[in-house]
């Protein structure tokens, strides 16, 4: 099977994959920017450095309130990073559980579960988040995590079920059953480890979409911390200044774009790696 091993040859294979390496470098740079950013920002997150949309403050100028754009870009990455990663983790774990359960139990249970899954798939991802936000006065950060994660889960479940179906009929699962191992142990110890490559690639893809969705919700003006520095929200706040001084909008847009390119390259690199592993 095409599992990525932590052995020396496995690591060497990883570094021969140019897309994967490029993706990891880009992603690491953006993550570092988001984590270290708040400490190296020249001005405070809410500090007024001059008139709105002028070249006061750092080289990127000031935003709609006269706050420093560069400092807010540096300060505004953490929330997006944390929320996207948590949402991805939630969606992956939930989806894998549903998919494994459906594939292993099978029968009518599988049929019902997957039909319900199809219903969830009939929703464009952003719609689910908007639906719930319409009945909420002020979204909390964990709501965004739950909503984005929940919108990923059915998509992950479909993939996990498909991969697991190919595995549950294999000999090693039958022999584990013959040995009298518990179902839970078989699923977790026999089936799941053999699914790691496609699931890793899926996690990279889900992270890419999470970043896009979390940023998009900020861009649409749904903020968990009104006035706080956040890449998505910055775009919304500074839109009117695009004609005067574009950096308040363009700087966060470019960072988000680069971030998603990086995570998407990682996802694609893992897929390529798994394909090569399967061939050899």
């Amino acid at each position, binding site marked *: 099977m095409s599992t990525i091993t932590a052995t020396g040859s496995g690591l060497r294979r990883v570094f021969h994959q140019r897309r994967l390496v490029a993706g990891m470098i880009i992603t690491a740079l953006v993550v570092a920017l988001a984590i270290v950013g708040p400490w190296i920002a020249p001005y405070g997150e809410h500090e007024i450095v001059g008139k709105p949309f002028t070249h006061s403050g750092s080289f990127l100028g000031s935003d709609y309130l006269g706050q420093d754009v560069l400092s807010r870009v540096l300060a505004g990455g953490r929330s997006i990073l944390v929320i996207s990663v948590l949402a991805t983790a939630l969606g992956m774990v939930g989806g894998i559980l549903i998919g494994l359960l459906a594939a292993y139990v099978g029968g009518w249970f599988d049929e019902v579960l997957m039909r319900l899954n199809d219903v969830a798939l009939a*929703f*464009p991802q952003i719609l689910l988040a*908007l639906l719930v936000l319409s009945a909420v006065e002020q979204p909390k950060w964990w709501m965004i995590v739950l909503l984005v994660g929940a919108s990923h889960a059915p998509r992950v479940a479909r993939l996990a079920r498909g991969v697991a179906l190919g595995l549950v009929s294999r000999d090693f699962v039958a022999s584990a059953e013959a040995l009298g191992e518990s179902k839970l142990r078989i699923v977790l110890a026999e089936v799941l480890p053999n699914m790691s490559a496609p699931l890793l690639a899926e996690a990279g893809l889900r992270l890419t979409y999470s970043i896009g969705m979390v940023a998009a919700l900020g861009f649409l003006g749904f903020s968990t911390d009104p006035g706080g520095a956040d890449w998505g929200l910055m*775009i919304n706040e500074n839109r009117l200044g*695009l004609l005067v001084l*574009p950096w308040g909008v363009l700087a966060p847009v470019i960072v988000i774009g680069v971030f998603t390119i990086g995570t998407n390259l990682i*996802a694609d690199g893992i897929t390529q790696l798994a394909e090569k592993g399967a061939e050899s």
Partner: protein
Amino acid sequence: MAQVKTETPATETTTDEPRRGRSATVAWALWFARRLGLAILTLWLVSVLVFFATAALGDPIRAILGKDYESSPSRVATLEDQLNLDQPLVQRYFDWLGGLLTGDLGTSLSNQLPVSELIGDRVVNTAVLVLVSALVMIPIAFGIAMISAHYRGRRPDHVIQVVLLGLAGVPEFVIGILFVALFSTTVLHVLPAVTISAGGEGPWQNPGSMVLPVLTLVFAVTPYVARIVRSTLLEVLDSDYVELARLKGIPEGVVMRKHALLNAIVPSIQVVALQLAWLAGGIVIVEYLFSYPGIGASLVDSVRNNDIPMVQALSMIIAGIYVGVNLIADVLSILFTPRARTAITS
């Protein structure tokens, strides 16, 4: 998902009831009825989800009134009356569903007009945007895929693959804003950044303002379609009959157009449909970005105003488009695949 669905009924009709001599039309009608039934079941469950996500989670009235909630009990009472909050939840759901089925979409909370009146024009505007985008996207995506497949493994193919991969992950609003900066505000000033349409006029009467929304949607969708069409083309190009065509001395261009492209169309229908269905969600952000007067921008406004009846109606429309497009794609791929057709009728 669609491919799996198309296969299940075929096997079941053969195993469940071996009816010999049944005409192909009946088998076809049965398959279609089953597929249609599934779509309706899906939509019904979607309606349950839409209703309970908006009405049962959170407190709509508190969200609508905000700080006024404590100070004006009379407005609370009016809203409670308007949303029929005195009735049990299940009762309200069936009232709402009944209205939906008879074309009564309720009354908007923010301006007290019937929802159907408010969204009628907007549905048309969105349909135009999505259709124009699809018409632009399909030839471009197929063209890119053909060029890429033609140069398989060589430099032009690599460059195209990397560019497509880069674009595929980038959120649509990032692409859209970069276009706005490039074409209307910062670098060039050639296209309008927002859609301006006078009352009652469709946005297509001012074609310039449609260029950027269409371009953004095309850029968001093309990478996915082009990548899958390319791999389908490659599969076909490796097949025996293409090899035979080449051996017969048919020029490579003709092989690509006649043998490869035509056979790649059917698998591509599914992917194009999936992307069109995705567009149903993508328009939310793109319409908001360009202030395009469609249902997507409407949805964002309604969510912000906590206008529950509007949100419910618009969500049902978007989910309906999604389910409908998938249904049409399934039917088309069955019709265009002789093997699947025989599997149903035999």
